[in-house]
C-alpha cells in the first residue's frame, strides 16, 4: 500500500513538472533565438538554424546546481528493501552541463534467504540543454555518463533436502563477494525547472547499458549498487531531484537588445 502511495506521489510530481515543462515549451522558440530573430514573422527551419548559429557562445560557468535525489530518500523512509542517498552537481558551460553524481545504496532482500548488498556509486558526464538561450538554468537535457560502483554482497540461507551429506538435515549455506566493481554507461533525459528563487526541481530518466561487474566469485550477485539487478544487462531508473543553484555571475545576454528569458 505504501509503495503504491509513493508511486502515486511520484506520478503527481511528474505531472507538476510536466506543467512547468509546458510553460518552458512556450519559451523554447525564444530560447533558441528563433522567434526573436524573425521579428515575429514566419520563418523556415533552415533560416531558424542559421539564426541560431549567430547566437554568441558564453562558455564561462555561471552557476553550480547541487541536487538531492528524492527517490532513494523515499525508498529509505517508506521501503524495506532499498536504502540510500544520492547527490548530484552540475556546472554550466554555455548550453552544456557537466554533471557528476555520487550515491550510497544498500539492499536487503529475500523471503526464504537473507541477501544484502552495500556500496557506493558515482557517475559523471556531459549534458546538452536544448533550451539554449536561457539564463535561469531551466533545462530539457540529454546526457551521456560513465558510471562506476564499488560494493559487496552476502547471502545466507538454509538448504533443505540436500542430497549431499545427511539428506535429512538442514545445511546453512553462506556466500559473499567482498570486493565487487561495476561499470556501465548511462543515457539520461531530464527536465529541470527553477520553481522559486534558486530552488530547482526536476527529474531524470536514465537508461543504463554496457554493465560489467568484476570480482564475482562462485556466487552471482543479485544487485548492483546504483544500477539495479545483476541479471539484467540494461536498466531504467527514475530520479527526482530537488536542488539549489549557487550563482556567481549572471548569464550573458545572448542577443543584445532583447530581454532575457525568464
Amino acid at each position, binding site marked *: 500500500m505504501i509503495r503504491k502511495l509513493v508511486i502515486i506521489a511520484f*506520478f503527481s510530481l*511528474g*505531472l507538476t513538472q*510536466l*506543467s512547468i*515543462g*509546458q510553460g518552458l515549451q512556450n519559451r523554447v522558440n525564444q530560447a533558441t533565438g528563433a522567434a526573436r530573430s524573425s521579428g515575429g514573422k514566419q520563418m523556415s527551419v533552415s533560416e531558424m538554424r542559421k539564426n541560431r548559429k549567430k547566437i554568441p557562445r558564453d562558455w564561462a560557468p555561471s552557476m553550480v546546481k547541487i541536487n538531492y535525489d528524492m527517490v532513494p530518500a523515499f525508498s529509505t523512509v517508506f521501503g524495506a528493501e532499498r536504502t540510500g542517498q544520492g547527490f548530484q552537481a552540475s556546472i554550466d558551460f554555455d548550453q552544456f552541463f557537466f554533471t557528476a553524481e555520487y550515491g550510497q545504496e544498500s539492499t536487503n*532482500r*529475500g*523471503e*526464504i*534467504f537473507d*541477501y544484502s548488498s552495500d556500496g557506493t556509486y558515482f557517475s559523471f558526464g556531459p549534458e546538452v540543454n536544448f533550451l539554449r538561450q536561457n539564463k535561469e538554468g531551466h533545462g530539457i537535457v540529454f546526457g551521456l555518463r560513465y558510471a562506476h560502483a564499488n560494493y559487496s554482497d552476502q*547471502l545466507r*540461507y538454509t*538448504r533443505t533436502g540436500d*542430497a*549431499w*551429506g*545427511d539428506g535429512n538435515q538442514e545445511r546453512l*549455506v553462506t*556466500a559473499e563477494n567482498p570486493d565487487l566493481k561495476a561499470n556501465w554507461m548511462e543515457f539520461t533525459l531530464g527536465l529541470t525547472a527553477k520553481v522559486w528563487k534558486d530552488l530547482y526541481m526536476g527529474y531524470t530518466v536514465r537508461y543504463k547499458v554496457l554493465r560489467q561487474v568484476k570480482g564475482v566469485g*562462485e*556466487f*552471482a550477485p*543479485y544487485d548492483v549498487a546504483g544500477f539495479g539487478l545483476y*541479471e539484467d544487462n540494461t536498466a*531504467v531508473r527514475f530520479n527526482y531531484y530537488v536542488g539549489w543553484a549557487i550563482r556567481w555571475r549572471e548569464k550573458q545576454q545572448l542577443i543584445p537588445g532583447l530581454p532575457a528569458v525568464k
Partner: protein
Amino acid sequence: MRKGLFIVIGVWLAIASCQEIKDCELESSTEYAWVYFYEADSVEQYEKTVAFSLVQEESSEYYLFSTLDDDTVAYDTTTYMPLLLNGETHEVKYLFDTDSIQYELTMLYEPHLRIYYDECEPVYSFKLDSVYSPDFDSVVLVNRNVDIAVGTNVEVYF
C-alpha cells in the same frame, strides 16, 4: 496539456508493462547432468541398456541407484542417468558397480550460486568443464550447460 498527460501515462504504462513476470518454476537451471550410454563397438550410435548394482558418488554418501534401495528402482535398467553435481565442490566422481567390474566417471565443472528471484530459494547453476573416465571406452562432453532444456550432457561409450 491533454496530449502531454497522455504521453506521461503512456510512458508509465510502458515502463509498468516491461516488468518481467517471474515464477520460481520457470528457473531452468538444474543440479544434475544427463549421462546417456551407447554401444562402443558400433558404426551407428545405438543406445545401450545398462544394469548396475550400485551407482554412487565416491566422496559422499550419495547414491543414485542401489539394488538395496527400492526407491531407486527407476534406474535398475536404463539407457540414461541424471548424475547430481555438488555445489560445494568442483568435481564429482561417480562409481558404477556391476557384479564384477567398477567403472569410474569424473566430471569437472564450475558451480555458480545464484538468486533467480526474491521469492525463490537460491539455486546452483553449473557449467561442465570436462569429463573423463579410465574405464569406459570413451566419454564425450556434448553440452556444457546443465539446464532443463538440455537433453544430453555426456555420452558414455562402452
